[in-house]
């Protein structure tokens, strides 16, 4: 038969086939995993820009030669660098190809189950894994073997001369399912990150802010993020040392309320670590609390109000980090710094408003403190500006994350763990056992079909066959 001549379809299919071969390559998968391991490990020893650009700069100055390599490899923003992202993309493609291939292999193995191919029959006769001579009647031996295998928990399918024993058929789909879960995780996490928004808002105690761009003090927004919800986030109260129903200390805990535009309350609960407020794709965590001094600034007839978010920090000399607010008068912008000196208890600054409620205010000029004000108190600056502290209360710092991918990711985690466990703990094992006669001497021949070449399984089958082969014949005994 003459081979058909190549067609243009064959020529165009060649690059696709080559690409398919590359993508399905086990060596590529191994190489990619190895690269991600090495790159990630090295990156942990290199300061990241997220930890501060000054740290990166001083490291680069101290290691000029290494700095050339780390800059080239993008290691100072390692997990967002093009090199790392390309490797992860390649790994995602490789994982998907692997999942597809394993699914095909599992379907083929499932189809083949219960059947004996010509090649199997030939190998059973000529090159079995195990051959055990039968002492008595071969049919009785096969019967005994089938009974023992069933008692041992295997599934037995009998033919006239061949029996197939198997276990763990569900295990055939464990590996494909696990790889599909991984492939989907890549997709969900990638799109989740691109469309995620996360940031910090400061909410005055007994006040509220809207979930809009302008409310965020800092935020990180993915390029595909559709936009903030516009809901109202309110802080109804704040318990500085909250104890839950079990008596566990949960630290400072605000009661946070989420309302829609019409004022209807959608969710209201106390928020503390491990007890965030959840509403659809939103997750609200308590991220601290601080003082909120509200000032009014008057120059001539002009008056404006300003507030500053002062964070408590017991490790600092005054117990709070200086915050700033600015006031613009024509072309002049004056920046004010404000600190709240907290009380000292057991030699340490506490993280709550001082009993005497004073706020120390200083101007940016010279950094000299200009006034210490109590609520209602005011001070007049040399240029005629009057600065008054209207009120001093608390604010609550909330971390707001908007990420649709979290729950699908949890579901894929659970599915993936189950699939992995099935794949590794319930592997598919199968063997064919046949009665063969070689030169008049009957034997039970075993061909192990298990793809992993499991030694313990093969030994188990061998011992079952040996027990069965030793069963004496009952034929002719009554003659």
């Amino acid at each position, binding site marked *: 038969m003459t081979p058909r001549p190549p067609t243009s379809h064959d020529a165009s299919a060649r690059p696709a086939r080559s690409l398919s071969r590359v993508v399905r390559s*086990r060596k590529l998968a191994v190489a990619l*995993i190895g690269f991600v391991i090495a790159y990630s490990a090295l990156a942990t020893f290199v300061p990241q820009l997220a930890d501060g650009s000054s740290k990166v700069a001083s490291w680069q100055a101290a290691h000029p030669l290494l700095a050339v390599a780390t800059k080239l490899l993008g290691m100072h923003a390692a997990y967002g660098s093009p090199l790392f992202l390309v490797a992860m993309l390649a790994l995602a493609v490789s994982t998907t190809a692997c999942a597809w291939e394993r699914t095909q292999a599992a379907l083929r193995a499932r189809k083949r189950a219960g059947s004996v191919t010509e090649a199997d029959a030939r190998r059973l006769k000529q090159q079995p894994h195990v051959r055990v001579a039968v002492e008595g009647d071969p049919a009785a031996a096969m019967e005994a073997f089938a009974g023992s295998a069933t008692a041992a928990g295997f599934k037995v399918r009998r033919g006239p001369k061949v029996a197939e024993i198997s276990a763990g058929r569900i295990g055939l789909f464990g590996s494909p399912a696990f790889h599909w879960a991984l492939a989907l995780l890549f997709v969900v996490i990638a799109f989740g990150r691109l469309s995620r928004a996360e940031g910090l808002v400061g909410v005055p105690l007994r006040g509220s802010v809207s979930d809009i761009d302008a409310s965020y003090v800092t935020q990180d927004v993915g390029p595909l993020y559709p936009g903030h919800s516009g809901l109202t986030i309110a802080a109804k109260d704040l318990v500085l040392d909250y104890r839950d129903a079990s008596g*566990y*200390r949960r630290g400072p805990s605000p009661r946070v309320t989420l309302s829609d535009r019409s004022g209807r309350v959608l969710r209201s609960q106390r928020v503390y*670590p*491990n007890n*965030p407020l959840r509403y659809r794709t939103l997750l609200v*965590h308590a991220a601290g609390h601080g003082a909120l001094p509200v000032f009014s600034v008057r120059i001539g007839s002009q008056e404006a109000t300003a507030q500053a978010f002062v964070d408590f920090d017991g490790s600092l000399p005054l117990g709070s980090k200086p915050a700033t607010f600015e006031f613009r008068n024509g072309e002049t912008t004056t920046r004010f710094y404000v600190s709240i000196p907290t009380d000292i208890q057991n030699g340490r600054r506490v993280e709550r408003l001082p009993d005497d409620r004073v706020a120390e205010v200083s101007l940016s000029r010279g950094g000299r403190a200009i006034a210490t004000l109590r609520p209602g108190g005011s001070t007049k600056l040399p240029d005629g500006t009057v600065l008054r502290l209207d009120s001093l209360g608390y604010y609550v710092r909330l971390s707001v994350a908007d990420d649709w991918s979290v729950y699908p990711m949890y579901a894929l985690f659970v599915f993936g763990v189950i699939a992995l466990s099935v794949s590794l703990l319930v592997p598919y094992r199968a063997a064919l056992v046949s009665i063969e006669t070689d030169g008049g001497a009957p034997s039970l021949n075993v061909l192990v079909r298990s793809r992993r070449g499991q*030694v313990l399984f093969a030994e188990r089958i061998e011992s079952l066959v040996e027990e069965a082969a030793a069963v004496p014949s009952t034929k002719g005994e009554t003659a």
Partner: protein
Amino acid sequence: MRNEILLMWVAVTFYAAGSILYVFGAVFSRKLLTPALWVSTAGLVPHAVAIGIRWARDGHPPFLGFYEVVHSLAFAAILLLPLLHWRWKSLDAVGVFVVPIALLMVGGAMLAPKTDNPITPTLASWWLVIHVTFAKFAFSTLLVSFALAVAYLRRQAGSGAGRFDAMLEKLPRQEVVDELIFKFMSVGFIFLTIMIVAGAIWANEAWGRYWGWDPIETWSLITWLMYALALHLRLTMGWKGTRAAWLAIVSLGFVVFVLLGVPIVFQSIHGAYLKGV
């Protein structure tokens, strides 16, 4: 605290005696392996009581601070030995590697400060128990995989003439040991996966982000990938025997680094669990 420390020293004594019996069993007489197992297992009793006393006092399992973390890892490792004996008596020789390592760990822990560490709001969660328990399960099963790998390679390289080699002969044949290395690595990998998944879910509950490339998170992923690589090489590229054994040995180094090295080497939000809060 005094009763707890006393009980811990009793446990250390049992583990030390067990280690000596294992070493003598390896060098002189295989018959000492079974008494070595039971002496080491007996040490689990005072150890468990000491853990219980501390748990009742502090209100949380032994998961915080170098002392608690390290000695409870050793507890998990030794706890696996009687289970192994029940299922595979022929693996008793694994104790020769596991018990001395556990003894060093408990001894090291006893030299560390034993301050009571209060549970912080971030740590007060059921996810702490799930995450850390599976970390300990992962460590103990991967340690057994490591021990089997060392035994495999020793038997491969040994002349078979020495007493230690004679003890190793008690283990199943090399092909079976090779398969057991794979099985323990598989189970350890599953535990490692659950540990990482639980950690990610917990991080989201506690901090609002499930992954932040924190050094411990990154090194946990690296360790998981290392074992994924080892399993991949075996299952898809036929890396069995000597190569698989070396992979099991090298990979445990990653586990030890994640559990004990990363909190010391790096500034990490997870560092508190080892350094104490």
